[in-house]
């Protein structure tokens, strides 16, 4: 008499982000410097973080970042996409791009990387952290606080 074989439990494939609709996923084909293996991200906003947004990685280490439009940190912020970056993001003249500068905590200050913002083409949901060859902006811009 042999015991019945244990029923095979169907293995549910681990979904990376069960609650993120595919249409909300931004693909960053090269990843971000330091996180090259994370290619898919979702940008989320919440009232307590406003006007900052949260950029959540869905792959690998799943890095999570706070970010804000660099023009909120510096109203006259002006960085131009290089022709190569325009091509990588398949930008056409009608595209309104989403610019997000990554924010970090250093000691007790919020510091923004204005040197290398993430630029997203919402029409195609692709993005890239651009690192312009020359830029007047710093990777270390402190946000003023009271």
């Amino acid at each position, binding site marked *: 008499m042999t015991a019945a074989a244990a029923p095979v439990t169907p293995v549910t494939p681990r979904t990376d982000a069960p609650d993120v609709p595919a249409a909300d996923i931004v693909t960053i084909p*090269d990843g971000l410097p330091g996180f090259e293996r994370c290619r898919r991200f979702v940008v989320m906003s919440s009232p307590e*973080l406003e006007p*900052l947004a949260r950029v959540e990685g869905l792959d690998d280490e799943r890095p*999570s970042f706070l970010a804000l439009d660099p023009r909120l940190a510096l109203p006259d912020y002006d960085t131009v996409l290089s022709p190569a970056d*325009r091509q990588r993001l398949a930008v056409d*003249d009608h595209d309104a791009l989403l610019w997000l500068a990554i*924010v*970090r905590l250093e000691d007790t200050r919020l510091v923004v990387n204005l040197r290398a913002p993430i630029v997203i083409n919402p029409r195609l949901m692709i993005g890239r952290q651009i*690192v312009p060859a020359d830029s007047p902006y710093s990777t270390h811009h402190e946000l*003023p606080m009271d």
Partner: protein
Amino acid sequence: MRVFTRKRNEAIVIGDGIEVRVLRVGRDGVRLGIVAPTEVAVHRGEIYAAVCAANRSAASTSAVEATGLVERVRAHLPSSSAALAPRGA
């Protein structure tokens, strides 16, 4: 690491379509010209390292702690992104 001796105007070719050429050798530095396909990003090493370090630091920022500080910077930022005109390409 591969090491080469190159004179002015001599180049190194890497893989398919990447060329590094010595344009000028001066006392304070060497001027290099890089030709690479558009899908290959070319950065100054120290800038790329600074961006990596900033990203690593940003990813380890505590959301709870940062949220507390957002309260304190909000008053100093333009009120909302609605005030920003969409940025064209």
